[in-house]
């Protein structure tokens, strides 16, 4: 034996006639460098072997690492149709091996890890997306029904919940909306100024920032901020309520979660988004003004007048209207993903991610549709 500080596990085989005696020496523990896996078969490859026995008199330590090795070894012996005498193994090892073998593997217990054909995979995807589209439509339908009940004053939700949601989606969102809108106005002004300076038309920065902010960017930036901030929160709230069966508790109480949870969230965002959008418009224009006055040397009055003359009421109303629609979309996407969530903490995380992605996709799609509509309507 080599003189090393840490003894390592050794396996040797001695053959007498048709019998092989496997001798385990040293510590056979997890983390010890056991003989490599391909050596399982080696002692059995010679012809004429019929019996296997074990000698563990020099085995100093063992744990489940040894058992793992033995299970593979016994499987190899089984493949060679050998008769195994386990008498030489320590009592504890024999008992653990018996436990491992006590319950046969259930035929359908393992997940189907086999490769799926391309057409099967495509087919499953198609069916899945059809199901998911149906779920989305069903949810929108139910939400519409709940909205109808609201108009008939028959919807069940708590006013105190609604007020709290309004506060969360309104006042508490102001700081982040301030920051983002102001910076976007600033950036627009910078980009525009560089181009417009070439024509000596720097005053038109006011038009650029004003129209872009009021028509599109105000509503869009607010919506994206709210999707990440509030839509995600809705998905997480409803997702964890689903995981803890709080949604089930509502349903069996005869209270529809759609009315009790989704409706107030839709109303909160529907009401708050236009206000946030107006605020965002103002901050965006202020951002533009900061650059124009500070860097381009325009007078504040001149900038103000140019902005007022550039923006029409239609631009403003169109932008604010879009913001309301985005608000409803964000609330719908957040609540939908929350309600669809699975019943684990991982599922709640996925629901949150999915809510933000869904909201943004819906917002951008709606934005495109609005662009075409407004163009056709001449707004």
């Amino acid at each position, binding site marked *: 034996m080599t003189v090393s500080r840490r003894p390592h596990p050794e396996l040797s085989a001695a053959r007498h006639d048709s019998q092989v005696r496997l001798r385990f020496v040293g510590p056979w523990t997890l983390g010890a460098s056991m003989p490599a896996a391909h050596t399982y078969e080696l002692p059995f490859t010679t012809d004429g072997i019929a019996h296997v026995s074990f000698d563990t008199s020099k085995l100093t330590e063992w744990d489940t690492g040894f058992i793992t090795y033995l299970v593979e070894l016994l499987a190899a012996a089984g493949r060679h149709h050998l008769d195994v005498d386990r008498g030489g193994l320590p009592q504890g090892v024999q008992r653990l091996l018996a436990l491992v073998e006590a319950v046969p593997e259930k035929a359908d217990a393992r997940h189907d890890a086999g490769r799926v054909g391309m057409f099967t995979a495509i087919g499953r995807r198609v069916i899945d997306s059809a199901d998911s589209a149906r779920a989305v439509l069903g949810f929108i339908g139910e939400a519409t029904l709940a909205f109808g009940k609201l108009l008939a004053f028959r919807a069940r939700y708590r006013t105190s919940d609604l007020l709290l949601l309004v506060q969360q989606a309104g006042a508490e969102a102001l700081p982040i909306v301030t920051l983002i809108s102001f910076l976007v106005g600033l950036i627009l002004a910078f980009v525009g100024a560089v181009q417009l300076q070439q024509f000596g038309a720097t005053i038109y920065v006011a038009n650029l920032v004003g129209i872009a902010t009021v028509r599109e960017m105000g509503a869009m930036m607010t919506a994206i901020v709210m999707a990440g901030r509030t839509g995600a929160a809705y998905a997480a709230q409803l997702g964890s309520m689903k995981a*803890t*069966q709080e949604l089930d*508790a509502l349903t*069996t*109480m*005869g209270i529809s979660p759609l009315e009790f949870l989704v409706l107030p969230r839709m109303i909160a965002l529907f009401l708050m988004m236009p206000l946030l959008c107006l605020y965002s418009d103002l901050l965006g224009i202020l951002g533009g003004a900061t650059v124009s006055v500070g860097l381009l040397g325009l007078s504040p009055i001149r900038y103000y007048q140019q902005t007022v003359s550039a923006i029409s009421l239609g631009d403003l109303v169109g932008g604010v209207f879009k913001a309301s629609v985005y608000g409803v979309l964000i609330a719908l996407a957040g609540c939908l993903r929350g309600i669809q969530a699975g019943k684990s903490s991982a599922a709640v995380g996925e629901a949150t991610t999915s809510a933000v992605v869904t909201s943004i996709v819906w917002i951008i799609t709606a934005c495109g549709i609005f662009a075409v509509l407004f163009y056709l309507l001449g707004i």
Partner: protein
Amino acid sequence: MATSTTDSDAHIRVDQLTMAYGNFVLQRDLDFTIRRADVFVVMGGSGCGKSTLLRHLVGLNDPARGEIWYGDDNFTRADPKLREQILRRCGVMYQSGALWSSMTLAENVALPLGEFTDLKPHDIRQVASLKLALVGLKGFEDYYPSEISGGMQKRAALARAMALDPEVLFFDEPSAGLDPISSYLLDRLILELRDSLGATVVVVTHELASIFNIANNSVFLDAETRTMIAGGDPKELLAHSDNPKVLEFLTRGAEKKR
């Protein structure tokens, strides 16, 4: 099955019920009757579909086949309005309590009262306090669910389930996660409520002590054959059943070795 009932005292009747998730059949051809004021236990090994059966009974899942009747009303085929009326006479206590975490205990109990009765806010508050006192939570009205222990959450959930004085109380694993004494006290409370309110009680559990303490009727679901293999009073099942699986379950595996 072994339930010798006439239709008059039948409260809930499960008729040829098959439960499935997609193509996976969990239990098929369940057929049993729960009588008025029964303490009815749904028992069976883990994963055999006990909790799913409860979800079917309260309409959270729809049967793949078969029907559920409440008295003379067909619950499975009922329109939403009738369904709501039936559910309003039911109270459910979920495994984890499922109290609404954004509301205090009193608000949790008060919500169904506010929605379905014409009581004034002051009266609602008083009734909610009374229900909490009934389950031993006097003085905890303004606590949030996260501020109290698991056992207290379960009792608060029971108070909420009884808010509307239901005719049927459903319990999903009431003793899960409780120490033996709390579990025993909860069992006593269930019996007490059954006796004083005259409610029918349906309990999903695999807790043997609890089963023998409270049940006078039961159904046994088997995970392998995926159907019910016994029914009736668990004590009688223990004494007279010749089904090895039922005996093994009711004796904690001791019967198998004999």
